[in-house]
């Protein structure tokens, strides 16, 4: 998220020492002011982000308090139970497959949509509206509509495909297709949102670049690959960060459409955490699972940062 455009006509920045320097009381004032300004946000962040993250880790080493039995220290027992839990492995596997499918599909589609709309095409406003609408609808609401689409027999898809003579299919009840169905819903939901960011970025790119390249005889694909796409790297990074977060955060459609089934083939990590923590009330095990999720997210954050930091171009 670097590269926010400087205000037009701004002179070069002053050296650091020129900022709020002076006699000692003023220097103290800087520190005090700084921390005071930060304080409200800091309090909330510590209470609802940093503290819970640490508390989750601590809780994962204790047992779940139940009614009359208080929590006792159990060391790595929860982790051992987790490693032996086939549902955990299933959820982890599902989430990885899910993320690995949703993220590239969404990003590619978002880019494609943005390029299509950015070009000379009739009815752009309508196209843009159509692509972006899923974003403003709550996932909970649209999941019910998709549930109808996937219903065997009289559902929309079976009716449509029936026109071409295929047999009815139990889309959400078949372990081979259930996860793919949810992936489709997630891609549909997010592609339009990311498209807007790409659109904004595309409109920043000077058309003269493309024209110059065309004059030199470069094909449109070449222009895209060598000029446009690299310039879109910062946007791609931003979009990727969001897409990764969403693929672990958004489980609303599972709650509505499959509840993790059939036989856990659509269980994602956060959904399993919700089940364990708020249906089974096994808070210690839920904490253990959360630790895994946090580690996974941290790992992905680090990976992205290292991978993309090198590749970003700035104008």
């Amino acid at each position, binding site marked *: 998220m670097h590269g926010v455009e400087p205000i037009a006509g701004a002179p070069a920045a002053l050296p650091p020492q020129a900022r709020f320097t002076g006699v000692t009381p003023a220097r103290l004032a800087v520190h005090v002011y700084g921390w005071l300004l930060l304080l409200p946000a800091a309090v909330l962040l510590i209470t609802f982000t940093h503290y819970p993250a640490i508390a989750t880790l601590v809780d994962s080493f204790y047992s779940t308090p*139940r*009614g*009359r039995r208080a929590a006792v220290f159990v060391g790595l027992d929860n982790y051992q139970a987790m490693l032996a839990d086939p*549902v955990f492995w299933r959820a982890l596997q599902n989430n990885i497959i899910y993320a690995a499918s949703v993220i590239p599909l969404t990003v590619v589609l978002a880019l494609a949509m943005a390029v299509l709309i950015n070009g000379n095409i009739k009815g752009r406003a309508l196209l843009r509206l159509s692509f972006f609408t899923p974003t403003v609808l709550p996932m909970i609401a649209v999941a019910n509509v998709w*549930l109808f689409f996937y*219903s*065997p*027999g*009289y559902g929309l898809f079976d009716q449509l495909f*029936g026109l071409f*003579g*295929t*047999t*009815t299919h*139990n889309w*959400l*009840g*078949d*372990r081979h297709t259930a996860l793919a169905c949810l992936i489709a819903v997630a891609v549909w939901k997010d592609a339009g949102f990311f498209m807007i960011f790409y659109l904004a970025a595309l409109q920043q790119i000077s058309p003269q670049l493309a024209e110059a390249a065309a004059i030199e005889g470069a094909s449109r694909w070449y222009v895209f690959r060598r000029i446009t796409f690299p310039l879109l790297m910062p946007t791609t990074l931003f979009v990727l960060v969001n897409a990764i977060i969403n693929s672990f955060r958004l489980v609303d459609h599972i709650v509505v459409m*499959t*509840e993790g*089934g*059939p*036989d*856990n083939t659509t269980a994602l990590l956060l959904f399993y955490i919700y*089940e364990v923590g*708020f*249906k*089974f*009330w*096994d808070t210690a095990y839920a904490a253990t699972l959360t630790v895994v999720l946090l580690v996974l997210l941290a790992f992905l954050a680090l990976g992205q940062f290292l991978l993309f930091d090198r590749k970003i171009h700035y104008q």
Partner: protein
Amino acid sequence: MRDATMKWLAALIGAVMMVLTPAAATSAAANDIELSFYYPIAVGGPIPKIIDGYVADFEKENPGIKIKAIYAGTYQDTLTKALTAFKSGEPPDIAILLSTDMFTLIDEDAIAPFDDLLKTDADKAWAKSFFPAFMENSQTGGKTWGIPFQRSTIVMFWNKDAFKEAGLDPDKAPDTWDELVADGGKLTKRDASGNVSQWGVEIPSTGFPYWLFQGLTTANNVRLMNEAGTATYFDKPGVVEALQYWVDLSRKYQIQPQGTIEWGTTPKDFFERKTAIMWTSTGNLTNVRNNAKFPFGVAMLPAHQGRGSPTGGGNFYLFKKMTDAERAAAFKFVIWMTSPERAADWGIATGYVAVRPDAWDTPTMKKYVADFPAAAVARDQLKYAVAELSTHDNQRVTKVLNDGLQAALTGTKTPQQAMQDAQQEATRLLKPYQ
């Protein structure tokens, strides 16, 4: 500009304060007893209106007691809400929760048994006046933890027109497993390319497949757990046989769709004639009556080695942490709500099985059954009804069984393997309770 902003801000703060301060919904006098009553349904629709009506009638007859009905969604949601409220220091007083939640509530130390409230002989007689089948999930360790209120069994609905079309007697439903297969075969309409436009039967397998499964195991004369809720019998041969039959309906006899069948859309499938026979809760009776545009019948589940169905539905529970006066008031409410007249009224309005024999002898109920005999099928099936699957750590143990059932139905595991794995896992989960 600033004035407008300030005014808007003030209005916003006012609105916020209004929302944040607890609303005094009813004008309760200072020494009224106020009880919170968690009920498992979404707000709105006909049923909350009925409950609100009952509450209002009770309050009229019992001045000094105020009941606040809280509608919390499905049974699952309501259990979650009741337990979260309990854990966060604002415990509910009365709740209607699944009869199978009994062990979970006991383990969370959330509920108190009714026994110390049954002081007079009349009270004791009252506690014995419910159908025994319903009491099976309500008692353990010699104590009564729940009182039946809205209970059900599984019943089988059949489309009489579809039967006629298939050359079957429209007034006779299949009564044995073999008959179900035979009839199903005739009812399944398949075209040349293998596309099925109407299935013979649908037994739903999402949400709580274990319940529907009990409709098969009971017919095979096997039980799934012990009375204390500390052991399960998932891998007994009779259980595996029942699962094999269920799987065969899709795979061998091909009269049921493959894969898992969604609970929520099964009634719609029935209305759309996508299936000629469906298994579902008797609680759906009114729904089917209103929406099926064809003559239909209701029957007991087909028999095999035996006959029967699991019971289902919700009981009254009284939570701990009430004062004696509150407990007495809550007990009054429970007795009032389960009186014969009210039980009959409730059964007629909703399709649940009226929970006590004497409710069926009231004039209103007798007339209703005369008009609509299908309503009595579930009651007649009670003779053969068994307890619903309920154990300690119930949510987890039932999930284990559900997963196994779905694995077998989707072909991932053989019934034998699925039940063995489920039994292994369930035994592990129940070890701390033995």
